[in-house]
């Protein structure tokens, strides 16, 4: 996992509650990404960051926000969780000059 951790690894929450997932990296990667993985859809990009405080939207950003106040941490927030956000969430990171991404182990989120 090249020094990328995600927390929590599993979470069950109720519809309408806020949820924050954390991605932490120890390799000083500049770029960080959040994806969700669902059967039949593969991985879809939610948001990504190209530096501290620099973020942009991906393919499926509605209902999600992100923040990156430090190089090593990239937070994904579901402001008001919905059942359609039940998924496995993966964080990835890469350095400048290389497109090879390193992935975390994933967070399985269930919204009931």
């Amino acid at each position, binding site marked *: *996992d090249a020094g990328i951790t995600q927390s929590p690894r599993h979470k069950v929450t109720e519809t309408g509650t806020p949820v924050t997932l954390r991605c932490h990296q120890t390799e000083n990667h500049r770029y960080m*990404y959040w994806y969700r993985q669902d059967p039949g859809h*593969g991985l*879809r990009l939610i948001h990504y960051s190209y530096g501290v405080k620099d973020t942009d939207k991906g393919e499926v950003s509605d209902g999600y926000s992100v923040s990156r106040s430090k190089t090593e941490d990239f937070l994904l927030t579901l402001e008001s969780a919905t059942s359609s956000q039940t998924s496995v969430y993966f964080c*990835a990171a890469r350095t400048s000059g290389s*497109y090879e991404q390193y992935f975390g182990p994933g967070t399985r989120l269930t919204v009931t």
Partner: protein
Amino acid sequence: SQQGEEDPQALSIQEGENATMNCSYKTSINNLQWYRQNSGRGLVHLILIRSNEREKHSGRLRVTLDTSKKSSSLLITASRAADTASYFCATALDRDDKIIFGKGTRLHILP
């Protein structure tokens, strides 16, 4: 809609045979990558091919890229049980930091 689409969605072959999976994409790219995902795990990078390259090898892996057809193929030779996994292509666009994945091919190696 997603940039990359892998074909086939699922593939079962006998151990020792070669496995070929394909990826088609929609817009011009800077490079294309292939990743492997074992069940319940994160993705692992396998190989990257740049838009000005046509073929690349890494061990038992061979990747081709045809930019005129906007397609790539991944060949795994002499397959092993440990190759059972899902395989994804990912594209990086020119002047863009996004990396977009396809839906993946599930490969099952039969003993």
